[in-house]
């Protein structure tokens, strides 16, 4: 058994961590948070130059072709650094959808641009309150023309193209849902930024009005493709969450060592020690579940749906747990704008909702475990 990342992958992690420490300090996250830009363009270009945007994209489409384990490693570092760039939308969702279901022309057109940082992509799925479900997709597709509203769409106001879930049938079955690829710069779509929990990442509302769109994948397979894309993204997002959880834990630990109260470091009070120990436990369980997800993702294992839901739930819980208790460890300082604790708190809660909420994934997990047991 070798349930670990390889030495090369660990080296890649160190490289990514060094790169992000330099190019993405908290100051850079704040610049986007405070509204100076919708995302960090220089960082995005830097990530492209490092080859990080295309690690899982095959060489023939302009990527480095390294693979999904490498992408997991980078995702974790992006989460640690709270990178204020459209990485998850572009790389976990749009690129994965293209690789799973795109025609060779579509791949040829968009994947190289993703790898080079020229194109930002996203997935337009949600239409207001609710979790991923075929019934919730109302936006209509008729004769290659889309009409309707998607919100929230992560990075919707900065994306160049979107994969859009649309309804093109009325049988009431999930085969009514099809996926479309839309060039957002070609007209027919209006984007409006939405104030959101974590302004270091963009959230938008997209209005599609007689918008021209090309199909992505077979018309009646939209939902099944989408489910697979969400599973793959769930694993990658979980790595981002674990990266964030680890960093929040470290911040709490460091503060507990430095802050003195009652004549001793607060980290010597058991209430604080045990709170940090519990954060470590959450983060460790989540990391182990993420490795399980990484294995399933990189080998296309039949267990991927179960592994993805497991990693997603565990990592969501861990990041939320670590981020909120990091504030608690910091006391009043933790509740200031100036300290970085709230950046992690915001991100942990935003990521918890982005691909469907915790309760949605809990439900999914039990379904999938039952299927496996029945089989």
């Amino acid at each position, binding site marked *: *058994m*070798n*349930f*670990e*990342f*390889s030495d090369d992958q660990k080296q890649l992690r160190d490289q990514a961590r060094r790169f992000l420490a330099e190019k993405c300090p908290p100051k850079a996250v704040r610049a986007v948070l405070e509204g100076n830009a919708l995302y960090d363009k220089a960082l995005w270009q830097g990530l492209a130059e490092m080859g990080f945007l295309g690690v899982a994209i095959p060489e023939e489409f302009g990527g480095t072709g390294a693979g999904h*384990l490498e992408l997991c490693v980078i995702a974790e570092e992006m989460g640690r650094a709270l990178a204020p760039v459209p990485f998850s939308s572009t790389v976990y969702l749009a690129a994965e959808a293209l690789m799973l279901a795109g025609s060779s022309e579509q791949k040829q057109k968009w994947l190289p641009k993703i790898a080079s940082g020229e194109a930002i992509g996203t997935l337009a799925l949600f239409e207001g309150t609710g979790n991923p479900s075929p019934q919730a997709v109302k936006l209509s597709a008729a004769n290659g023309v889309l009409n309707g509203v998607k919100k929230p769409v992560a990075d919707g106001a900065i994306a160049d193209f979107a994969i859009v879930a649309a309804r093109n049938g009325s049988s009431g079955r999930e085969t009514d849902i099809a996926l479309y690829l839309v060039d957002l710069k070609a007209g027919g779509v209006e984007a409006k930024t939405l104030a959101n929990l974590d302004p270091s990442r963009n959230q938008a509302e997209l209005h599609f009005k007689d918008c021209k769109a090309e199909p992505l994948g077979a018309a009646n397979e939209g939902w099944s493709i989408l489910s697979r894309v969400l599973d793959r993204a769930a694993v990658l997002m979980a790595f981002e969450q674990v990266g964030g959880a680890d960093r929040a834990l470290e911040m709490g*630990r460091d503060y*507990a*060592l430095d802050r003195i109260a009652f004549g*001793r*470091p607060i*980290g*010597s009070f*058991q209430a*604080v*020690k*045990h709170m*940090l*120990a*519990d954060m*470590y*436990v959450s983060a*460790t*369980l*989540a990391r*182990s*579940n993420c*490795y*399980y997800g*990484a*294995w399933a993702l*990189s*080998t296309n294992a039949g267990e991927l749906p179960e592994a993805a*839901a*497991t990693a997603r*739930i*565990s990592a969501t*819980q861990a990041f939320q747990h670590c981020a909120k208790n990091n504030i608690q460890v910091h006391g009043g300082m933790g509740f200031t704008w100036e300290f970085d604790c709230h950046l992690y708190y915001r991100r942990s809660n935003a990521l918890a909702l982005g691909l469907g909420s915790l*309760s949605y*994934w*809990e*439900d999914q*997990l*039990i379904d999938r*475990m*039952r299927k496996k*047991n029945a089989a």
Partner: protein
Amino acid sequence: MNFDDTPQEAAFRAEAKAWIAANAPKQYEDELRKSSLGRLVLSGANVLDVAKAWQKKKADAGWACLHWPKEYGGRGSSPIERVIWQQEEGEFGKLSRVFIIGHGMCGPTMMAYASEEQKRHYLPPLASGENIWCQLFSEPAGGSDVAGLRTRAERDGDDWIVNGQKIWTSGAHYSDYGILITRTDPTVPKHKGLTMFFLDMKSKGVEIKPIKQANGQSEFNEVYFTDVRIPDSQRLGKVDDGWNVSLTTLMNERMSIGASVATGFPELFDYCSNLMLDDGLAIDDRAVRAKLANWAVRASGLKYTAFRSISALSRGERPGPENSIGKLVAGSMIQEVATYALDLQGAAGVVSDPAQAEIEGKFQAMLLRSPATRVEGGTDEILRNIIAERVLGLPGDIRVDKDVPFNKIPTKGRG
């Protein structure tokens, strides 16, 4: 990243599998599968006899204490082979419960500190289960604070004379030998005046009194020592260095990471998959599903954390204090799981009679045994301290007694 065996590991697994298939006591497999924390009943047989017979059979064929050297009754296997064995032994591994302390703690301590002759004499029958060993550490005065122990050993020529009391000694009533930590110098701070021995539990002056536990069973005991003579040759480590010897014992405990701690989750999942509630199967109920999912990811997290540790082992790394999380997570989880399983049964959950209760009272037995898991072998609080201090690097607790001579430490909390 993969879960695959190397060709060598695969060959070992195949050999183990074949041997187990041909030799395991199959007639008990079903009952073992149904057993759980707090309940192990084999109809028409004494569990201890069955356990000893299985252990002996394994030892005769070279499958006992795999990671021990051959000359001491083991197989000289790698840590990873030991894990593979445990995976293959499956349900039959539940029969090893009575040997866990001897094999996991006493044996390794003997291996580190006993003479060569003693090792060759005592270890093979320990490995084969012919002798059972117990661990005489905890006392009324100290469990977490085991260094606060008061049992005295005083030198008398070539012997030591031991007086005092141990408590919570698992299996003392059926043990042949034990490792015993005593105080040899009460005038120095508590960690500095301790000495370790091993002794024959049939020695004159040893009196064993079973303790009736909260769940009604009697697994642990009080052990009284009245002028018990132990030859100096049975001392383990230097005089007054017993604390360091005990640390070796505890560190070795961590090597047994392959043996996973029960969480109760697989049992609960099965139960909910079959249980009919008023409006359908329990597992179709949203509230039930949310609970199950939370426990599912914890159980899975433990499983894959263990896999990471196994991978580290196979790279030759030593397991560290981070392995404390297994029991910490599983202990409170099995208690929550059992509580919830009874909640699903409504008022009938109160019935524990195996003839009447749901799945033969499995969850009732689990509920009543579960508090002990959070105490034995290091309480939840001590495990959190270990993680906080040794993994996260936070300061140790303030110890008011660290530099005080042992005989000057206060012994009462109030008044």
